[in-house]
């Protein structure tokens, strides 16, 4: 009888085909992998007092492969953001180096946690480095905008990081986190990223966000809508020249 019960339990929970937390984190890392992508988006920032900022457009291009993880954000319009660039890359150790520039030769290092264009867009978030953290815990199932998802808590003890804990509610089939909450070392909420609308990537069941809302703990709300994209963007050879320039500058200064 006892053996039967154990078997039943095994069937219902332990031996279920659903991936475990570590496995799912691996799948999420894989889903991000691309040799090049570009997305153009409209961004609207609403301050805590309800006043809207001037809407602006940016393009995000990047690549995520096993050895190279790089991103660039280009301001498109209006004048306020035009010609302003940010680039970042993730080193093997997991920390993210970011620069800001108008011309690559003048690139200056910035904090990867910095807010871009006074919005809640943060380069660090775009790398979603938490999927590489060692501690991944499966939590409960949830439902967001009518879609089922499983919550995973990723945490780290890395004292260099502002974000120490991330709670993602992942639609497993779509490999998409429908809601991502970022917490600091004292478990205080820093930001919430909520996906409003998703679109399917070509030839797969994997989805990517088309509309998302980022809410900061201080009440700033940033709405992002992707209006154009290219899943097979060809990264130009000099696309990340600014990162190299800044590195050289630094070593030169030393």
């Amino acid at each position, binding site marked *: 009888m006892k053996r039967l019960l154990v078997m039943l339990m095994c069937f219902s929970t332990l031996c279920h085909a659903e991936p475990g937390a570590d496995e799912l984190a691996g799948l999420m890392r894989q889903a991000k992998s691309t040799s090049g992508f570009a997305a153009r988006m409209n961004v609207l920032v609403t301050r805590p007092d309800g006043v809207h900022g001037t809407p602006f457009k940016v393009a995000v291009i990047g690549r995520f492969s096993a050895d190279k993880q790089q991103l660039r954000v280009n301001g498109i*319009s209006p004048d306020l953001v035009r010609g302003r660039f940010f680039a970042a890359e993730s080193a093997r150790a997991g920390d993210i180096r970011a620069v800001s520039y108008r011309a690559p030769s003048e690139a200056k290092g910035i904090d990867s946690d910095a807010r871009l264009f006074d919005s809640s867009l943060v380069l660090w978030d775009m790398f979603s480095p938490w999927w590489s953290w060692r501690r991944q815990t499966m939590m409960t199932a949830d439902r967001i905008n009518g879609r089922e998802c499983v919550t995973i808590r990723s945490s780290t003890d890395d004292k260099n990081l502002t974000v120490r804990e991330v709670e993602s509610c992942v639609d497993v089939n779509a490999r998409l986190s429908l809601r991502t909450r970022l917490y600091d070392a004292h478990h205080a909420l820093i930001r919430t990223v909520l996906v409003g609308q998703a679109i*399917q*990537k*070509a*030839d797969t069941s994997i989805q990517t966000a088309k509309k998302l809302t980022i809410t900061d703990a201080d009440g700033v709300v940033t709405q992002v809508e992707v209006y*154009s994209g290219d899943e097979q963007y060809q990264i130009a050879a000099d696309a990340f020249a600014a990162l190299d320039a800044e590195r050289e500058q630094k070593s030169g200064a030393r």
Partner: protein
Amino acid sequence: MNLFRFALDNLYRRPARSGLTVSAISLGIAAVVALTSIAWGFEASWQKANDARGTDLIVTRIASQNSMPSPFIAAKVQDALGRLPHVKEVVGLLSEMLTVSEEAPPAFVFGWVYGSYLWDHLRLVDGRWPADSDEAVVMVGSLASEMLHKKTGDQVEIEGQVFNVAGVFESSAVVENGAVIMTLNRAQALTDKPGKVNFLNIKLDAGASEADLAYIKEQVKKTMPGFLAITSGELVGNNAIVRISKAMSNATILIATLVGALVVFNTMLMSINERTREIGILLALGWQRATIIKLVFTEAMLLSLLGGVIGILLGAGLAVGLEHLELMRGKIDAIFSIPFLFAVLGLSVLLGIFGGLYPALKASRLLPSAALRHE
């Protein structure tokens, strides 16, 4: 005095109820007419754009759920396509929905290969054509010119880049009249998609037959994995917006039919319940049961047909009104065909038949003596 006049009189005796019933039916029919004509017009406009360009076949990446197929490197397949029999020209096209003016909704921005046949069907209304494949100018469709308040010599800002308006053109397709066109090179540079297109347009020579068309489609399927060759009609049929608008119009037809039939049913049932005694009298006066059925049917039919006619006028007015709405301009080109309008009238007749059937049978089955005793 005949059955028709008597039926008309019966409706006239209860003006409020008859009026409400006709209004309900006409609203349903109006929704059907407006949505269907817009859905068809939408499809026809895209079709027209492709037909006007003289495109025989379109090659694109197998579509994902995105409404526009994702761009691809033209060079990958362009040469192979050019070598297929009867292919005269293979021309790349990049299209994006972009904000061109803060005051107007996003518009289609097309990038066409400079000097290709795509440009041939456009008529220059004002200004000039781009001078070469790299000139940073745009051509503005006549409708886009009106909506964006831009004319030859003005400047437009697209994706943070400023372009001079070289000229204004007119096309037989509303989609193109509402669009901004530039050379493919410029569009690729603007959207950071060097070498990329959404579609390759193929023009065949005069000797090409249907069989040749089918052969080319087959060859693309076999030798170019991930790509699809389709006629403009097929492409339009696959367009998500066309599909959604058609699905919406079909759903509206279904809902309007159900609601319309229910309204007629309810009205006629109420009417014969109120007139039970009168029907008893008619039976006593020698009316045959078939005549009672005809009377109730005629009344149901009059209500639904009148609702149908008013609905068609209302729906046509609605579609034409929407066409002229600032937000919709250049996106709607409603089509009303005579067969379609007759089909809608047929639909209203169906409403009358479905809604009137049971009440008519119920009325005809009344026992005359019981009906006469009815208070």
